[in-house]
Structure formats: C-alpha cells, structure tokens
C-alpha cells in the first residue's frame, strides 16, 4: 500500500521541489553558461528589502484573514447547524462565495471598490459623488480590501469545516447538560467549544497554508500597489520569475516559501495533529 503512495509523492511533490531547489542554485544571467552560485541567491534574499516587505505584508495578511475567517466561519457554522425552515437553501447560499473562482471574485471586488461607479461608494454616499473614496489608492485601505475580499470568499470554507465538527458532537451531551440546568452559553463554552477544537484546528491549518499562497486577489485587485503596499511574497515571486525572467532568484523565493510552509505544516501536524488524534474516541 505504501509504495504507490510514496511513488505518487515522489513524482509529484519531491521531484519538482528538488528540481526547483537545484534551479535556485544557478545564476539568473549572464554568460554563455548558467553558472553555479550555490546559496548566493539565498544570501541575496536575506538582504532584499523588497522581499522583506513582501514577507511582512504576507504575514499580516495571513494573521488577519485567518483570525477573521475562523470567527466568521464559526458564526456561519453555528447558524446553519440550527434546525430551521429552509436550512438547506441557506447552507447552499453560504457556499456561493467559496464556489466562485477567485479571479472572478477579485474582479468583482475591484468593481465594488471602484472610485467612480463602485457599489460600495454608492451605498455609503449615494448621490454625494464627491465624497466617493478611492479605496484601492490608499496603501492601508488597499491592504484591508484584500483581507476583506479573502474573508468574504473563504469564511464559508472554514464554516464548512467547523460545521462538520459540530455534527459529530452527540446530541445526548446537550440533553444531559440541559437536564443539569446548563445555560446556552455554558453549553457552548463547555461542550461545543472543547469538542469543536479538532475541527477548528483543522480549519486553522488549512487556512494558514492557503492564505500564505494568496496571489490572485493581489494580481487582479492591485497588482501589488500602491507602492508595494499589497505586494505579497507569491506575487513578488511571480514578477521575478515570469516578468523579469530571473529563474534563479525567482525559484529561490518559491523554495524559501516552500520550506517555510513545510516547517509550519510540520509544526502544526506535530502539535495540533497529536492533539487531534488524542481527541479521537478510543
């Protein structure tokens, strides 16, 4: 059983990763032969202020969007977990943002936030066209807009994971608590939340990793601007690789993100994962 799985991992994960790593050890240019530069690009990356800024922007995005998405997701899950008329429809509706391709959603947010005809300005200011705010022109608001778009888009995914967690909590525990006279808040605090932990941690794991890869929102909404305020690390890597054609340095950025994420994932799986496994009923 292990062999096909290992082959799969080797061909599709290990090989490309190693190949990229090798590529990152060679110079971008010049010369008739690409020369071996060892870890030169990695040393360059450590001193590259643009990369530092991109990394900080990415970290900020990951932190903010993950926290907000977990909160929103839990809220969504609690609502659609309740029994009410039309629950099926609501559940389907909640998933719509997640089902829309990110590129389309990003374009939609770009239109919504437009300074001349954007719906958000129209709702806030109506006919007072002179008060319309160019959201994406301000470095901080542009960053906030990217976070907002991601939260809107992905909260339902966290909601889905949390809902799955809610559904495995046996109804009897609540009944028993009710018999003991526990209030709704106490039931939530002492039953729902602890039993929900595995699902929340799974959601946290997926969202952190996913948020690190943010690219399309930035590509469509701001192109990293203004003044690199929304330039995330993956977009910087894209520009270096695809527009500038710097294979060595571009892959160095990719490999660094890859290694950082691998370490983070291992950390999550070690700590969070072991907690998850302990929670499983014997």
């Amino acid at each position, binding site marked *: 059983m292990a062999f096909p799985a290992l082959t799969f*991992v080797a061909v599709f994960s*290990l090989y*490309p*990763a190693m190949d*990229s790593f090798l*590529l990152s050890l060679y110079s*971008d*240019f*010049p010369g*008739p032969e690409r020369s071996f530069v060892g870890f030169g690009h990695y040393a360059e990356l450590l001193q590259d*202020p643009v990369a530092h800024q991109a990394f900080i922007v990415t970290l900020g995005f990951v932190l903010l969007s993950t926290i907000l998405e977990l909160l929103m997701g839990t809220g969504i899950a609690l609502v659609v977990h309740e029994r009410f008329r039309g629950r*099926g429809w609501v559940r*389907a509706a909640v998933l719509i943002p997640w089902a829309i391709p990110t590129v389309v959603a990003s374009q939609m947010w770009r239109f919504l936030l437009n*300074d*001349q005809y954007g719906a958000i300005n129209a709702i806030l200011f109506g006919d007072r*066209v*002179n008060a319309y705010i*160019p959201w994406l*022109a*301000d*470095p901080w608001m542009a960053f906030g807009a990217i976070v907002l778009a991601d939260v809107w888009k992905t909260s339902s995914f966290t909601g*889905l*994971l949390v809902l*799955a*967690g809610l*559904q*495995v909590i046996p109804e009897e525990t609540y009944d028993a608590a009710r018999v003991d006279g526990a209030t709704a808040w106490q039931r939530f605090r002492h039953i729902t939340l602890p039993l929900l932990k*595995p699902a929340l941690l*799974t959601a946290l*794991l997926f969202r952190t*990793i996913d948020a*690190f*890869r943010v690219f399309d929102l930035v590509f469509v909404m*701001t192109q990293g*601007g*203004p*003044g*690199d*305020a929304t330039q995330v690390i993956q977009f910087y*890597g*894209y520009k270096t*690789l*695809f*527009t*500038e*054609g*710097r*294979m060595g340095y571009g*892959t160095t950025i*990719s490999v660094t*993100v*890859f290694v950082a*994420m*691998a370490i983070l*994932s*291992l950390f999550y*799986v070690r700590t969070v*994962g072991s907690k*998850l496994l302990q929670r*499983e009923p014997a």
Partner: protein
Amino acid sequence: MNGLHVSFSIAASSFLRHFSPWAVGLFAASLLFNVPFAHCREFGTAPFGSASFDFARSLRSGQAQDRQGRLGASPTLVSSPITLHFVTWKADHPSVWDEAIQRFEQAHPHIRVNREIAPHSSTAYHDLLTQKLRNRDVSLDLFFMDVIWPAEFAAAGWALPLDEYFTRGEREKFLPATIASGVYRRRVYGVPSRIDSGMLYYRKDLLERYGFSPPSTWHDLVRQAQAILEGERITNPLLRGYSGQFKQYEGLVCDMLEFLGSHNGSFLTDDDSRSNLTAPESVQAVQFVREQIIQRLATPAALTYQESESLAVFLQGNAVFHRNWPYAWGLANDPRHSKIVGKVGVTPLPRFPGGRSTSALGGWLYGISAYSRHPDEAWAFIEFMASPEMQKHFAIHASLAPSRLALYADPEILRANPQYRDLLPVFQTARPRPRTPVYPIVSHILQRYFSRVLAFPGTDIRKEAQEADRKINRFLALLRDL
C-alpha cells in the same frame, strides 16, 4: 447535505490519522506551489540560459537568410493553406483589426491567420508571450513587441532578425525613433506598426472660457487648472485638474519619464551606464508630481488608474487636462464613448522652465518568432499590415498614428486626425525608455520607487531614489560584465 458533511469530516480526520506527519506536511506544502512548480521544467531553458544568451548565434550570418535559402532551393508547392498563429493583444478597436486581417487573407488566399487574443495589458501580454517563447513553441509565428522588448527578445534569441526582409531602403521610410526601438546590436527585429507618444489632451471649451491658451510649462498647467477648478466648483464639483496614469505598472514609468525629461532629469545617465534618479533634476521633478499633480490637481484615485480609467474620467467631462497616447483622440470625439465631442484639444506635453517638452515613446512592433516554421508567410503578413494602405486604415478608423513619415502628408488621414499636423514634431522627438535586455527588472525597480513616493507622502524622495539607484546600477553592472 448532512451525509456530505459527515463523510467530509470522516475523510479529514482519517486523513490526519493514517498519514505520517511528514506525508501530511509534504502534501500541505505541495499545495503551495501549483504556480511555479507546475512550470519549472520548461524553465530549464531559461531566457538567460545557456542556449539563449548566446550572442554569437545572433551575430552569425542570420537565421532569416538560412531559412530563405532553404525555402528558395525547394520551390514551394503548397496546396493546402498555411495557417499563421498570431498572438496579439485585445485591441481598443477590434472591428478595425478584424477587417484588416480579412483584407490580408483575401490578398493572400494561401495564408490564413489564426489570432490568439492575449490580455490588453502590456505586462500580462509580455508574460504570456515570453512563456511560449521560453518553451520554444513552434506553433507561434507572429507577435507584437512593445517598444521596450526588442533588446530582451533579441538577446534571448526569441525574435527572428529581419535584416534580410526589412531592407534598408524600406526602413528609411519610417520615423527613425520607431526603427531604432526595434534594433538591438545593429540588427533589426521589429517592424513598427505605429508610433505612440504621450501628449496632453485638454478641454478646449474650458480653456477658452477662462481665456487661457494651452499651457507650455507645468506651472502654467497647474495655474490654469486651479483657476478653472475654482470657477467650475459649482457647475461640476467632480471636475479634476489632471488625469494621468499613476498606478504601479508600466504606464507609470512612461508618465514619470515625461516629467523627469522635461526637467532635464532622466532615469539613466546619457551613456545608459548608470542610474540618474538621484540627480537633483530628477528628484525635483518627482517632488513636483507628488505635491502639485497628485496632491493638488488629480484625485488620489489616480494612483489606481491605467490608461482606460484615466481616459474615462476625461471622457466624462471630469478632467481639464489629460495625458494619454494618440488613440484617445478618436474615442474623445466619438459620441458613443464621450461627453466632450468637439471640445477636445491636444498639444505637446508641458515642460519645466529651462527644460524641453518630453514625450515617452511607445508603440508596437511586429515580430516573427525565431521558432516559426513559416517565416516567409509571416513576413508577407507584416509587410501587408505595415504597408501605407493598411496604416492609413488604422489611422483613420482607430486613430493609430502611422509609423511611416509620408502618411503625415496624406489629406484623408489629416482630415480624420487634424492634430497630426502639429504633433509630428512630438512623434519625431519622442524619448525611448532604457534599451536593455534587463528592462523588465529596471522597470519594476522604477515602478516601485515612483509608486512608493507618490502613495506614501511622508517618504524621503532622495532616500528612495538612492535605493532605486543602487539596485538599477547593480543590474546594469551585471550586463556590462557580459
């Protein structure tokens, strides 16, 4: 719905239970890299890789000749039509292009042209095109090159040298600046389809109402705009003094080149060997843009504007002055798009006292892929599209300014574009952006620098310029060592 959720949660938990932490970590991490990893193999043959940065090859007698010789030796007995694959951008006037290609196919019944429409944005188009070329895509025959690309395409061996096709005598009929943009190391790689250069559009009606003539200096422009804004505050509160392109993208580089150039500043020193951004003339011009243009005349939203957004503001009648390329003339006078038909004037861009009006050279060159199997047919296409007749078609129906000098005396073209009469000197002196195979890198550094100092009013322009200087010099030095 219930079943789905339960099975999902089972799947997720069994996933975590049955796989080793390493495998999970690897899987999770592999999710990250769908973009770069998926394509990394193709990049083995990088543009700056062994085969491609080979100047010796591009300096050899020339591929065009080899191919021609071979084709000439065996007479072409083609019965089935040849299909040329032309990767082009999304045009501002699609129907005008449709008609042009139809006419070509009628004139050359054995050639068909299959168009692949790439994004409108120059950078997005560049990324798509260079990816195909890196992969040596033999199905690609024809493309456009932005005037900033030929050095990169030539150095990488992607563009076919056209010296054998594009004769010296023929080249002399074009505006010299457009020919120069297609030349790299004494070989010509592109045929100019048109010329673009930045120019100042203005509201003729408003300037007349306030007794102004078109401004010749930037300070005049600011003064006039402020007087008009003051007077029109009640009639049109949305009116802005200036509308240009200040988003962090390639267009920002063009707009800033014009400000710097008209203040005797520049991006690079005269011999193109070093960055010149820290020169006082260059720094002061940037400061002027930040304090006078962005903070006083334009809306802050200009920091998100490319050509189309800034033009929309002008066409709505909400800008006194507007910087754009020649194509905007046709749209500004088209009642389907514009509220200011007949109220538009166009003039060379202003200068600073002691400086000269400077306009960025833009435009697109036809090029043939070095990997094309049909270079002769591709040349037939280029020859047809760049002919005087077709350039006239584009000038009249799409207001694309011709790259052939003689057409500026054509009465029909001048009737459709009366502004060409005055603007020919602008076209003839348009200033190119730096010509270097590492232009995309230089451009990114410039874009970051300008966008930062414009978007963050507190930044120290000199310090940011030094930072950009240092980076640009590093890459220019790398090239010198070649």
